[in-house]
C-alpha cells in the first residue's frame, strides 16, 4: 500500500515536499486553507538575488506536484492520535488517516498597523513590502500610480527584532528584500532619492552582499543606520519620517512621497492552532519547536510529525525548498525503517 503523507499548507514548502514524495512513490495530500497554491511566494513578483520571476517558481512547483491530492479552501478541524496513526479531520468533512503529517504552515506577515507610530492604514503614502510586490505584479495602486514619486523610504525591521511587538527574532529576508525593492523602484523612478533605514544590514546569503554593493554604487541608494521612530503626514499628503543617523549621531528627517514598511515574518497562528491539537511544543520565538535546532530542524518531538519551511522560523525560498526535500527524506527513511 502506498503510504499517505498529509501536508498542511500549500505554499512552496508543501508543493516541493509533495513533488518529492510523488517521486518516491508515496501519496501526498495537500491541505490548503486558501483558494490557491504557492502561499506568500505566489504574491511576490521577483525573487532575490537573481530577480527570478516568482510565478515561474510557483508554476513549476505546482506542475511537479499536480498528481498529489489537493484540498483547497480546507482547514484542519481537528487532529487526533489513534494507535499508530493520526486522524486528520478537514473543514470540508473529509477525514484522512495517516501515519505521517508534514507541517508546511509557513509564517504570517507582521501586521504593520500594529506599529502605530509608522501610520500604516492611517497615512495614505505608507505601504508595506507586500503592497509593493502587489503593485509590481498588477500595476494597480493609487498610492503610486499618478503620483509624483521623487523620494522613497524603506524601513527595515518592522515588527522584527522588536520585543515590544513580541517578535524578538530577525526576519532574515527583509534586508535583502528592501535592497531588491529599492533597486526595482530606482529602476522605475530613476530621479527618485531612495533611503533605506536599517539597524544592522544582515546580508548573509549567496550574492546578497553583491546586491548591496550594486544598490550603493550603481543605484546611489542611501543607507541610513537608524530606526525610523515616527512618521507623520504633511499638508501635501506626503510623509515625514524622523530617525537618528546613528553613524553621525544626529537626528535626521526627510519628506517622502512613499514609505515602504518591511513587515517581518511572524509565526502563523493557524500553525500554532494545529500544533496545539497534537500538543506540539512552541519555541520561545512563537514558531514551532524542532526536536533540535541544529541536527533535526525538520523533526518534531512526536513520531510521524515533521516540519519544513518557515513554520519553524523565518526562512529564504532556497532554505525552505531544501528543508522540504530534507523532511521528505526523513519521512522516507522512517518508512523504509518501519518496513524492515
Amino acid at each position, binding site marked *: 500500500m502506498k503510504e499517505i503523507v498529509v501536508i498542511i499548507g500549500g505554499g512552496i514548502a508543501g508543493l516541493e515536499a509533495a513533488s518529492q514524495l510523488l517521486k518516491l512513490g508515496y501519496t501526498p495530500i495537500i491541505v490548503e486553507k486558501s483558494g490557491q497554491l504557492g502561499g506568500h511566494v505566489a504574491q511576490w513578483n521577483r525573487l532575490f538575488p537573481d530577480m527570478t520571476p516568482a510565478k515561474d517558481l510557483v508554476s513549476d512547483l505546482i506542475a511537479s506536484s499536480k498528481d498529489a491530492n489537493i484540498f483547497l479552501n480546507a482547514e484542519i478541524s481537528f487532529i487526533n492520535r489513534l494507535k499508530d496513526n493520526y486522524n486528520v479531520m478537514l473543514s470540508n468533512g473529509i477525514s484522512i488517516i495517516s501515519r505521517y503529517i508534514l507541517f508546511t504552515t509557513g509564517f504570517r506577515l507582521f501586521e504593520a498597523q500594529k506599529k502605530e507610530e509608522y501610520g500604516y492604514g492611517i497615512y495614505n503614502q505608507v505601504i508595506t513590502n507586500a503592497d509593493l510586490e502587489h503593485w509590481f505584479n498588477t500595476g494597480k495602486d493609487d498610492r503610486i500610480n499618478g503620483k509624483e514619486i521623487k523620494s522613497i523610504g524603506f524601513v527595515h525591521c518592522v515588527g522584527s527584532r522588536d520585543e515590544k511587538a513580541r517578535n524578538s527574532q530577525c526576519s532574515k529576508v527583509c534586508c535583502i528584500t528592501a535592497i531588491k525593492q529599492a533597486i526595482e523602484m530606482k529602476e522605475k523612478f530613476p530621479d527618485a*532619492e531612495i*533611503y533605506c533605514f536599517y539597524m544592522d*544590514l544582515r546580508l548573509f546569503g549567496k550574492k546578497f552582499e553583491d546586491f*548591496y*554593493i550594486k544598490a*550603493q*554604487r*550603481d543605484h*546611489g541608494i*542611501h543607507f541610513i*543606520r537608524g530606526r525610523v521612530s515616527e512618521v507623520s503626514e504633511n499638508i501635501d499628503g506626503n510623509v515625514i519620517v524622523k530617525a537618528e*543617523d546613528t*553613524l*553621525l549621531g*544626529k*537626528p*535626521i*528627517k*526627510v*519628506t517622502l512621497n512613499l514609505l515602504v514598511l518591511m513587515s517581518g515574518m511572524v509565526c502563523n497562528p493557524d500553525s500554532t492552532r494545529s500544533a496545539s491539537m497534537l500538543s506540539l511544543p512552541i519555541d520561545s520565538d512563537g514558531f514551532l519547536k524542532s526536536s533540535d535546532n541544529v541536527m533535526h530542524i525538520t523533526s518534531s518531538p512526536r513520531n510521524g510529525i515533521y516540519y519544513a519551511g518557515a513554520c519553524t522560523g523565518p526562512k529564504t525560498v532556497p532554505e525552505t525548498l531544501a528543508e522540504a526535500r530534507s523532511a521528505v527524506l526523513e519521512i522516507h527513511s522512517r518508512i523504509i525503517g518501519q518496513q524492515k
Partner: protein
Amino acid sequence: MFGFRISPSSAINLDNVSRDRFSELCRIEPDALRCMACGSCSATCPAAEFSGMSVRKVLLYLQRGKEEEAFKIMNNCMLCGKCTMVCPRGINTRHLLLTICRIYEKEDRR
C-alpha cells in the same frame, strides 16, 4: 531681551541637502558610494586620534550636506595611504580624498 534664544536645530533635514557636488564626485569616483562604514580607515589613520580625521566620516558628512565638518577633519589627512591598504571594499581612499579636494575646492578655496 529674554536671556535665552530659539536654539537652532541640530537635526539634519535631508530635504534641504544639496547633492550636486557629491553627485559630481560619484561620477568621477563611483567607489565613494561603496563605503559600508566599517571604520577600518579611521582605526588605522595616524591622524585620527589627534584630529578626528576619518575617511568614513568625511564621506558621511559630505552625503549629509555637512561640508564644513568634512573639510575640517580632512585638512589633517597626510595622504599616507594606510586607509587604502585596509579598506575591505578596496576603495582607493587616497585618490578619493584628492578628488574631493579638487571638486569641492573649486568653490571653497581655503
